[in-house]
């Protein structure tokens, strides 16, 4: 360390003082900025706490353990009004996740089919697909949900007049699906004017799911269409010169290559779908937002309830993003 040792050269070229040191200076500046920032945050938090306590609204979570006192219309978990608020919120979260997962599967399947159909050789089908996409993606989701619930599902008849399809009965009291019952495979049956089936979906859930799937599948169809269009035309020609039919070309040659373009685009559509489930309250489905709203009204803990809501939706969306990013890495070309 010849520079720092005092010697004959030191008088001509004195060592830099510590505040002139190019090594410490950036740290010093960062430190001061960081300190100011911490002070600012402390001031803002202090301000928040002072004003909240003045208004008697200081954050507290004890109410979470108190009995909810309200009922929910449908729940995968057992629930009764004497259970605490946090259980009610969990019930709402599970109902939300149920809508998200079913919506993801449904809209992916439908969207992929519609996206593929826009490359069909049948001109009528191609036109129909355009109409489907343009109509569904240009009408707000809330309007569509209200339409499906109040106009379509609530005009279904009940009892013997219900719409009966093979294995499925559509009635105002719910959707009844065939499934594995106590005595093997069971079909929906009418007992004393009331339908019974191994699997029943409420019309509220059905309306929410239909609205979400139809709306989001239109966007997914466009993503899929973009992905397929990105595959060079030569791939199609090569496949057909090998004698592969349209379906086999699509399934074995084109779609796997298109996935690289499709997957990143799907991510934001999936997130839109997850966020869209919070409109469930418009059609009477008990999702997280619906339960949270009742909770908020009964407890008056607006800030806490909204913090829970924000965290929950953020976690769901970040979870979807994480899964999709993993999937994205999986389908990308590996460069060796």
């Amino acid at each position, binding site marked *: 360390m010849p520079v720092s040792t005092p010697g004959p050269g030191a008088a001509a070229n004195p060592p830099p003082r510590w505040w002139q040191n190019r090594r410490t200076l*950036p*740290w010093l500046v*960062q430190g001061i*900025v960081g300190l100011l*920032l911490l002070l*600012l*945050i402390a001031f*803002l*938090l202090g*301000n*928040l706490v*002072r*004003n*909240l306590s*003045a*208004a*008697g*609204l200081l954050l507290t979570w004890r109410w979470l353990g108190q009995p909810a*006192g*309200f*009922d*929910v*219309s*449908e729940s995968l978990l057992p629930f*009764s*009004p*004497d259970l605490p608020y946090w259980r009610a919120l969990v019930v709402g979260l599970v109902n939300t996740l149920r809508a998200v997962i079913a919506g993801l599967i449904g809209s992916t399947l439908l969207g992929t089919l519609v996206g593929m159909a826009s490359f069909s050789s049948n001109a009528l089908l191609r036109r129909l697909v355009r109409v489907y996409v343009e109509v569904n993606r240009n009408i707000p989701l809330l309007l569509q949900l209200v339409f499906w619930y*109040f106009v379509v599902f*609530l*005009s279904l008849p*009940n009892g013997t007049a219900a719409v009966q399809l093979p294995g499925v009965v559509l009635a*105002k*009291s719910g959707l009844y699906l065939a499934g594995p019952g106590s005595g093997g495979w069971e079909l929906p049956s009418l007992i004393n004017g009331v339908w019974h089936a191994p699997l029943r979906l409420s*019309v*509220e859930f059905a309306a929410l799911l239909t609205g979400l799937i139809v709306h989001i599948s239109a966007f997914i169809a466009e993503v899929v269409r973009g992905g397929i269009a990105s595959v060079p035309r030569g791939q199609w020609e090569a496949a057909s010169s090998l004698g592969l039919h349209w379906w086999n070309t699509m399934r074995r040659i084109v779609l796997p290559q298109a996935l690289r373009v499709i997957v990143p685009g799907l991510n934001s559509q999936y997130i839109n779908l997850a966020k869209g489930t919070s409109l469930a*309250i*418009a059609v*009477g489905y*008990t999702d997280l937002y*619906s339960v949270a*709203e*009742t909770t*908020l*009204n*009964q*407890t*008056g803990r*607006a*800030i806490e309830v909204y913090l829970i809501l924000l965290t929950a939706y953020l976690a769901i969306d970040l979870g979807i993003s994480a899964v999709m990013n993993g999937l994205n890495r999986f389908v990308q070309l590996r460069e060796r």
Partner: protein
Amino acid sequence: MRRLARWLPVPVMAGALLAGCAPDGGSGVQSAKLSAIQGRGKLICGVDGKLPGFSFVGPDGTYSGLDVDVCKAVTAAIFGDPKKVEYRDLNSSERFAALASGEVDLLSRNTTMTLSRDAAGGNGLSFAPTTFYDGQGVMTPKSSGITSLTALAGKPICVESGTTTELNLADRMRELNVPYTPLKFQTGDQTYAAYLGGRCVAVTSDRSQLAGKRTNFPNPAEHVLLPDVLSKEPLAPATVNADPAWADAVRWVTYALMQAEELGITKANVADRVTAAKANTNQADLRRFLGVEGEFGKQLGLPADFVVKAVSAVGNYGEIFERNVGSGSPLKLERGLNRQWTQGGLIYSPPFR
């Protein structure tokens, strides 16, 4: 460090948001809210807006109803002119947030007074006197043949979320051990649309609200109220706890409407009564009530003759009731509990002294 620096703005923005949420503290003897209303030149009143008899927008765009008349009475008491009021339609979930944030000055929206809504640790509201004593009821289509709550076992019931109704229903059905499916909607419109669409065999709400909504149904005669009364629902105007002086002003304007009925002062005769009180110095009670002497108005931060202004605008409590929900209205509700205490009812104003 560069990575950290990239994230630095995030807590700053979050902090700014939090600071923005903080309500203005401060309450004094002089009502900050009342000064703000006077400075603004109008009162902002939160109402339902879709409930015939209580607050409803007519075909000409004007609001009418019992709740609306309370807004008008308070407005007239402040400004001498019942037109200096602006209404905000609020659904049951929005109402308390709108009041707490100061978006509305006064909530006159068939709101049930309860402990948790009143308490500082709950919603922190301050309730004015009850303007309508109600009870929760259940309405079913006549054709359903349902005549009691127990007959609703296993059936879907439509209810508006964020109401006391929702909780009372859960309590009563638990008591009776009757399983049921509550279908909750965010607004009254959605609730009644689902009921009329046949999704629920019953809809539950305050009995007055059911009667009011029924007048707008395609076939009102086909829907009946069950005899069961599920709860007490004292409906009262509300303000926030943080401004007791403003709450007092609203409270005593409401009492003035009730006291006016007790004293037989009506919209038609109030001017004559003032003239009479001015001429006769012996009628001290009346002179104080009408603001001819004393300083009741000043104590509340209102004009001396605020009672006269309120009654000239909307009439006394009895007139308001009959015009909006009683014999003079399509609802044709009985006065029942809402009679004056002198006639066996619960409407009772403390003395103006």
